[in-house]
């Protein structure tokens, strides 16, 4: 593909920030090449004479390296190896020994092998965060640090210096540019409170100066693990100094995407920083003075340079044009490159004169060359500023959007603020550094670097910026001799051209956001860094009607010369400017970030806490299978050798109903409540009365939301007149405490009530079954466990045989005689084991949540979250008895609304499949037998079939010897005895509606 290989320049014999003693071998598309330590992949390619990279994504046009930085739209690679990483720009990829890459055609390929690298996160707090280490950033950091402030300096490159790395020959603060960088670096690294982070890109800027940055640590990451390959920094900064530079804009002309067309500043960077010469015969096409520096360094490197300057002749002897001529260059003014010769690589540039309106003013002339360096002007990098809703204003002289209204506690300095003179950057940076340090409470110790003893007004400073920038003549689209705009690339990554923009305006698009969407400009990987402002400029030109040739006519309502754009004040501006058109929105991230780096360490077991009870190890040892209940790991069932779940659950159920079984109930939420008004408070929270609950007794209660829906339930014990011990559901523990706190604090602060969570202070073992009394008698010899001596819903404080103090309650969630033993959690395992030992002679059986569910369902005890879904009232559950008719409580008012009093509510019943072996799927819907019409379950019914309810719980009952289910059914209690059809998976089964409670209706078993 590359007959042009090695046609271009190559590595210069000296110079550059390279370690020439350290050659680095790498492979691209199977070809072995060599670079040096200090190279990027792109600089090594340039040094090897290879500008050509992958093809463009849709048009399959050959493309070359365009830039030397994060804005690169063409040069993307996949890094091969154990873990392929896709879509990395060659311009920012540090060259490493053995690097093996494949060029991409604008699109990535995801590797499906697991990424075994590590990624972590770090939080850092800074008094002053300085982003960017060019001259402005270094000056800012140096000043900010001088008074002892905590300063963090972020640099996305692997070297500090920013633009100074490409300007090594200039003098900065009376020393060589690189010496200056080294001296500031040394100073910063010596300061105890300063952190310098290279390879670290701040990609997100959020409210309150919260910054997010990604550090690439391939240089330190270890194969053994522990050290992350990338680190996400969460930065909380008092003050932020944005010193993030500017992007050079390409120029939109015909075939401006041919390999060998490169940004002028990138050319300079390759030559100066990496001693890599991108071309030997160079046409340099510029709209401004800055590119003359590129001409100078190219000449010095031995290249021939022809300057094509879009601007008319500037007569002043001090002009850049004259300077270049004096240096022996050919400078052609009022001219433009209007086309490129060559497709796989530049072999020549067509150059023509242009008139004041930017139209061609003569025939094009071909100048042979192997590189076209372009400079369309500069665009301050405003991404981070704009992510914080910082305002921008279009500056005609600078020909760019510059920050206007600032962001609170932020400073924007240097090229990112339109300050392009290095000395001015130092002044502006230092001033911001001092300002930030002072605002952070650590005034800088050093005095001014000079030049700003009296700070200029914004206007004076702007004038200074204007003088430094010189004259810029923006060329939003250079006409081609054939009038076509089809290969005038505006957004190379998305393969969008000026012709696309023209179509957009012709279609009625007036907003830049619409143009973006109509074309897809700025949606590519560089997110508009390359094409954003050129699009806006082009749009301005098209909507102004200046370029009459470019504006189609005859479209209804499309007289573009009359296009109306509104200014911020809402007044129509007949002549749009880039400022009135405005930019698209800048969003994080500034540069792409791997998903896995954002995921960090929170993977696998660390994704979310798994909460365990003190007896967890026992459950594991005894073969429990676990169920996730919220964050808790609860034993689900304990299969024995050869048992499936059904067999295990049947055995566990039998034990509980016929002998004795025990369950870990530690996960239930527990809240200690104290206060003179605690009874009143509970009375308002629960639907049933609590004022008269005697000390020593417990009561089951239901809580509702304000809108009357069941919210949680549980048993609350009265420990003393003013002390209660509330239990909640496992999943509801946190929300119930929050709920109580909210009402206590925000609505009824006058009530004397205090709440504390003791969920994990206590470990709870439920001992269940006809023989549980015997087990408890052994465990708690001091306790009178007789039916008379220890009644249902009572509790006792006692000392167990082991000497451990315990609170024993007689509570049942199965209908059987049952006890709950509560002990401080650190005795939980011991007491669990003691229960197992005491019960051994009765063949005590551990059971899990599944058996618990079966047992309670046989008794129609609802489970909040299973029988309820946020639309179910206590009445719907058949629990009218738990709803007071007299007292006021939360939710009560809602019950008198129409939807709660009219028939048709779904209410709890049990349903029995006529086929006793059929266990209905939970969630099966219920319909009336004649509701199906001719629907057989095949495919879908032609019209909706009315549903009357659905199955909430469904099990096989050991006690009943058959399958059964609970269901919420419209007017359920009135349907008892009716037959309904359960619908599931395209099948139907007849079920009989029954009263909810199927087992021990009289409640005879709870006393043993």
């Amino acid at each position, binding site marked *: 593909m590359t007959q042009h290989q090695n046609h271009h320049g190559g590595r210069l014999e000296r110079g550059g920030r390279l370690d020439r003693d350290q050659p680095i071998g790498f492979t691209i598309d199977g070809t072995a090449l060599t670079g040096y330590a200090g190279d990027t992949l792109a600089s090594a390619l340039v040094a090897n004479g290879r500008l050509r990279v992958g093809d463009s994504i849709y048009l399959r046009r050959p493309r070359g390296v365009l830039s030397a930085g994060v804005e690169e739209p063409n040069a993307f690679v996949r890094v091969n190896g154990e873990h392929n990483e896709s879509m990395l720009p060659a311009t920012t990829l540090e060259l490493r020994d053995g690097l093996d890459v494949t060029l991409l055609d604008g699109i990535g390929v995801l590797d499906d092998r697991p990424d075994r690298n590590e990624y972590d996160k770090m939080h850092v707090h800074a008094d002053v965060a300085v982003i960017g280490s060019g001259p402005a950033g270094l000056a800012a950091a140096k000043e900010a640090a001088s008074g002892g402030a905590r300063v963090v300096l972020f640099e996305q490159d692997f070297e500090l210096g920013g633009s100074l790395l490409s300007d090594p020959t200039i003098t900065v603060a009376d020393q060589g540019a690189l010496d200056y960088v080294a001296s500031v670096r040394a100073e910063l690294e010596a300061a105890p409170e300063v952190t310098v982070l290279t390879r670290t890109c701040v990609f997100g800027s959020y409210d309150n100066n*919260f910054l997010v940055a990604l550090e690439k640590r391939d240089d330190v990451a270890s194969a053994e693990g522990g050290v992350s390959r990338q680190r996400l920094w969460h930065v909380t900064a008092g003050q932020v100094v944005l010193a993030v530079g500017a992007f050079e804009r390409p120029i939109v002309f015909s075939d401006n995407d041919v390999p060998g067309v490169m940004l002028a500043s990138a050319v300079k960077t390759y030559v100066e920083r990496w001693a890599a010469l991108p071309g030997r015969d160079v046409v340099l096409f510029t709209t401004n003075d800055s590119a003359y520096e590129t001409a100078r360094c190219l000449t010095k490197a031995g290249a021939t340079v022809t300057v094509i300057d879009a601007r008319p002749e500037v007569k002043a002897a001090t002009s850049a044009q004259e300077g270049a001529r004096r240096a022996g260059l050919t400078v052609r003014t009022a001219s433009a490159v209007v086309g490129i010769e060559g497709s796989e690589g530049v072999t020549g540039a067509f150059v023509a004169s242009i008139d004041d309106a930017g139209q061609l003013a003569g025939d094009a002339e071909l100048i042979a060359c192997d590189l076209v360096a372009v400079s369309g002007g500069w665009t301050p990098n405003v991404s981070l500023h704009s992510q914080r809703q910082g305002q921008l204003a279009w500056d005609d002289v600078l020909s760019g959007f510059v920050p206007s209204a600032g962001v609170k506690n932020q400073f924007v300095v240097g090229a990112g603020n339109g300050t392009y003179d290095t000395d001015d950057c130092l002044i502006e940076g230092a001033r911001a550094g001092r300002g930030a340090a002072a605002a952070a409470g650590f005034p800088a110790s050093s005095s001014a670097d000079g030049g700003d003893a009296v700070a200029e007004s914004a206007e004076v400073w702007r004038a200074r910026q204007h003088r430094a920038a010189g004259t810029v003549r923006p060329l939003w689209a250079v006409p081609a001799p054939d009038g076509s705009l089809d290969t005038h690339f505006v957004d190379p990554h998305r393969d969008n051209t000026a012709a696309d923009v023209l179509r957009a305006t012709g279609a009625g698009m007036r907003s830049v956001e619409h143009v973006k969407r109509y074309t897809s400009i700025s949606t590519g990987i560089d997110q508009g860094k390359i094409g954003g402002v050129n699009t806006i400029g082009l749009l301005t030109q098209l909507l102004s009607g200046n370029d009459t040739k470019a504006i189609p006519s005859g479209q209804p309502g499309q007289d573009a010369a009359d296009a109306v754009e509104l200014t911020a004040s809402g007044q129509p501006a007949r002549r749009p400017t880039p400022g009135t058109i405005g930019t698209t929105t800048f969003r994080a991230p500034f540069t792409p970030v791997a998903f896995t780096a954002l995921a960090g360490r929170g993977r696998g077991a660390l994704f979310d806490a798994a909460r365990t009870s003190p007896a967890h190890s026992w459950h594991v040892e005894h073969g429990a299978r676990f169920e996730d209940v919220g964050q808790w790991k609860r034993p689900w069932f304990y299969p024995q050798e050869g048992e499936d779940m059904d067999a295990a659950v049947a055995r566990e159920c039998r034990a509980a109903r016929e002998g004795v079984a025990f369950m870990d109930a530690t996960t239930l939420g527990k809240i200690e409540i104290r206060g003179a008004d605690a009874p009143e408070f509970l009375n308002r929270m629960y639907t049933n009365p609590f004022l008269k609950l005697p000390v020593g007794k417990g009561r089951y209660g239901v809580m509702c939301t304000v809108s009357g829906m069941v919210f949680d339930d549980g048993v609350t014990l009265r420990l003393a007149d003013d002390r209660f011990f509330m239990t909640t559901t496992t999943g509801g523990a946190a929300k119930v405490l929050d709920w109580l706190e909210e009402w206590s604090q925000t609505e009824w602060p006058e009530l004397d009530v205090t709440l504390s969570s003791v969920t994990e202070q206590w470990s709870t073992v439920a001992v269940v079954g006809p023989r549980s009394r015997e087990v408890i008698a052994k465990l708690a010899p001091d306790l009178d466990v007789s039916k008379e001596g220890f009644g249902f819903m009572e509790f006792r404080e006692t000392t167990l045989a082991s000497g451990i103090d315990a609170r024993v309650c007689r509570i049942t969630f199965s209908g059987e005689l049952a006890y709950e033993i509560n002990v401080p959690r650190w005795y939980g395992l011991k007491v669990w084991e003691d229960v197992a030992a005491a019960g051994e002679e009765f063949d005590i059986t551990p059971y899990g949540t599944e058996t618990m569910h079966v047992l309670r369902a046989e008794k129609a005890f609802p489970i909040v979250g299973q029988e309820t879904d946020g639309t179910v009232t206590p009445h719907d559950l058949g629990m009218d008895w738990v709803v007071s008719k007299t007292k006021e409580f939360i939710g009560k008012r809602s019950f008198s609304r129409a939807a709660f009093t009219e028939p048709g509510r779904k209410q709890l019943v049990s349903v029995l499949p006529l086929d006793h072996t059929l266990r209905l799927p939970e969630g099966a819907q219920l319909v009336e037998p004649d509701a199906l019409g001719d629907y057989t379950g095949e495919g879908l019914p032609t019209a909706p079939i009315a549903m009357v309810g659905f199955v909430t719980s469904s099990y096989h009952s050991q006690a009943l010897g058959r399958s059964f289910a609970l269901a919420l059914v419209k007017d359920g209690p009135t349907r008892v005895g009716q037959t309904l059809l359960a619908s599931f998976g395209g099948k139907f089964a007849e079920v009989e509606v029954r009263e909810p409670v199927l087992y021990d209706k009289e409640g005879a078993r709870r006393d043993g």
Partner: protein
Amino acid sequence: MMVIPCPFCGPRNETEYTYGGQAHVAYPENPDALTDEQWAQFLFYRDNPRGSYAERWQHSAGCRKWFNAVRNTHTYEITHVYRLDQARPDGLPKAPLATKEVGA
């Protein structure tokens, strides 16, 4: 990242807080005295301005105290933070139950 100044614990990241919606919406003194329309207003209607908004937050990962904050819902800037027993700063938006009823 919003940094919310808890009146008791000082500034902490929003991740430590629970949002509680509009402030100063008192539970009705006597719910039974309300019409269904009025009750619906209490249950389901909250102001939703673009701009200054008095709202409730709980410092759930810290002192667990509820407090009020005035925050701009567009800029997310918090201009006032005050305890439940402190008066609402002057000039803030009205309380919701004061506005007209909705039928339809």
